[in-house]
């Protein structure tokens, strides 16, 4: 058993990763609440944004501009998908809506592999200027990127929670989560609210893509499928509460990283999100045996 000292650096990386998972998880939950879509292409969109940023930086575009392009690209692509397929699939089950986003995932994944081919063994990396600096608390080196990871998670979660609670648009989104038809009857511009949710989710995908490209790896496959880990957090919160998603994301990030120093479990650490989500889903759905009308858990 490793000593407490060995765990300390992994707590830091765990919290930072958890913060980014939270950011992604919150994006997924908000979109699911407003539109009923589990956006499985979240990771792929972010990954493509990050790869575009990498290309722009390598041809000499200013860094801030390249980052902005990543966020804008992710937002625009997600919004475009939402505008085309949102109304088309509005009356279908959540499963069909989620499966359709797998189509987008495959398209983007194929395109990324085609445009930024990895067969040559070329290793790309995207480093943020915040990697260099940092400070240390009792021998643990903490980079500013890690601080940003956690901070962005906190800010986005708090901001989204407040937005849903206090603004008119947020209230409309919560109403849509309950019943789309009735909300429309009450005069809420349903399409516009949905478009806002798509855009927000896409922007978050871009930010998460940038941060994860720096923290984990700038690799299409890795980034595309990191969405599953973020989804784990959202699932633990049953795709409902933003705050719970945040806490679950921190838990997932922490557990995943704290398993690394335990030698016998190192190889299995990446299983943590899956196992946690599976257990949570099973525990939370103990009671319900049959759903009569609308699809719920």
């Amino acid at each position, binding site marked *: 058993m490793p000593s407490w000292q060995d765990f300390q650096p992994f707590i830091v990386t765990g919290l930072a990763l958890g913060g980014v998972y939270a950011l992604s998880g919150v994006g997924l939950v908000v979109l699911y609440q407003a539109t009923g879509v589990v956006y499985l292409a979240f990771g792929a969109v972010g990954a493509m944004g990050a790869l575009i940023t990498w290309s722009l930086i390598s041809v000499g575009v200013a860094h801030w501009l390249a980052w902005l392009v990543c966020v804008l690209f992710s937002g625009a692509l997600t919004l475009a998908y939402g505008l085309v397929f949102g109304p088309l699939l509005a009356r279908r089950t959540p499963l*069909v809506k989620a499966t359709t986003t797998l189509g987008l995932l495959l398209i983007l994944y194929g395109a990324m592999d085609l445009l930024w081919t990895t067969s040559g063994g070329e290793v790309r990396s995207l480093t943020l200027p915040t990697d260099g600096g940092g400070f240390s608390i009792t021998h643990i080196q903490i980079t500013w990127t890690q601080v940003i990871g956690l901070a962005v998670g906190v800010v986005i979660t708090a901001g989204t929670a407040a937005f849903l609670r206090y603004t008119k648009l947020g209230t409309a989104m919560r109403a849509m989560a309950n019943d789309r038809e009735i909300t429309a009857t009450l005069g809420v511009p349903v399409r516009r609210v949905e478009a806002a949710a798509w855009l927000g989710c896409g922007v978050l995908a871009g930010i998460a893509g940038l941060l994860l490209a720096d923290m984990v790896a700038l690799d299409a496959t890795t980034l595309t499928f990191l969405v599953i880990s973020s989804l784990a957090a959202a699932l633990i919160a049953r795709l409902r509460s933003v705050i719970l998603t945040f806490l679950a994301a921190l838990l997932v990030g922490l557990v995943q990283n704290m398993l690394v120093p335990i030698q016998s479990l190192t190889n299995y650490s990446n299983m943590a999100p899956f*196992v946690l*989500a599976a257990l949570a889903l099973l525990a939370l759905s103990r009671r319900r045996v049959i759903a009569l009308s609308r699809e719920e858990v």
Partner: protein
Amino acid sequence: MLDVAGRTASKRQPRLLLLRPGPPTLIRAAVIVVLLLFTLLALPQLLSAYYVDAMTQVAVYAMVALGLGVLVGRVGLVSLGQVAVLAIGAWSAARLLFATAQPFPVVLLEAGLVTMVLGTVLLLPALRLRGLYLALITLMLAGAVTIVLATLNFPNGGHGFTGYNGNQTHVPPIRRPSIATSDPAFFRYSVIVAAVMFALVAIHIRTRPGRAWAAIRQSEPAALATGINTTLYKLWAVALASFVTGVAGGVMAGAVHYLYSIDFPAYTSITILAVVLMGGAYSLWGAVVAGLLMQLLPALLQNWGVSNDWLTILFGIGVVQVLTTAPRGLADQFPKDMARLGRLLFRLVRRVRPVVAEQGETP
């Protein structure tokens, strides 16, 4: 439930299975027999070694698609983790083939049974969940299984439970049945195994379980109310699908000789679901189409020097297209389109019946 048919289909009048117009059973059977004989006798002679290999993989993936088709098309359970099930089957078969001298078919059967038990046990608690949540939990479970397999490694002739020896310099190939050691012979062998699996599923669909599954897919509460043990029949479907996929894994182990965990990346599950949806989850022919899409198309593209990434993009477009407009996939859509074309061209022909769109898909 994956109601891929959506609203358009539910408006159609329900028709009884027996009253459905379609080609007579005899013709249908004759078509199947002729196709099978052609595949077994003529195809290995016509194709180069490269395409014989590819066609063996088609047989394997047709079985995988068949298993997923049972879940998606019959019961309405979407699994995003079939590649993990396939890997479990391949692993068990490889381990048994190294450890024992049992005949190949016995090993296939055992691998199928092991996979059936594991698949059922893994999904047993998850069957309380429905629809989206079940699909997502299979994604999670498959991710977990993939990581375990990557750590465990595939057997390479070593000793112990895992049968893996990292220091081995000479890795023995996984053996094939003595009657089918050459590539064309093993291709015939895998086609026969696949045909047996298709027959097994077809029997299920036409008998009691098939009717129960149809009822469950339409409405689970209604099925329950009519006295169908929904849990039993759902488990039955999962067990059957896992068994078929496990056998496919066993065939795959023999086909490739060497197995590595990187051959089973988790995202292949998504591709498998994509080709099953594109091929048509409601028809057994859809599984054949899915196998061809999944394995023959990449082989063709590679031969032509086109990147496989185009195929991934095509599958993505296919999924979106199927889910939004053509819910029954190519196996259903293509003959219909051809029939429509035929009617346009030859007005003389009153009714052109598609020959292959035959399975008892409920409206």
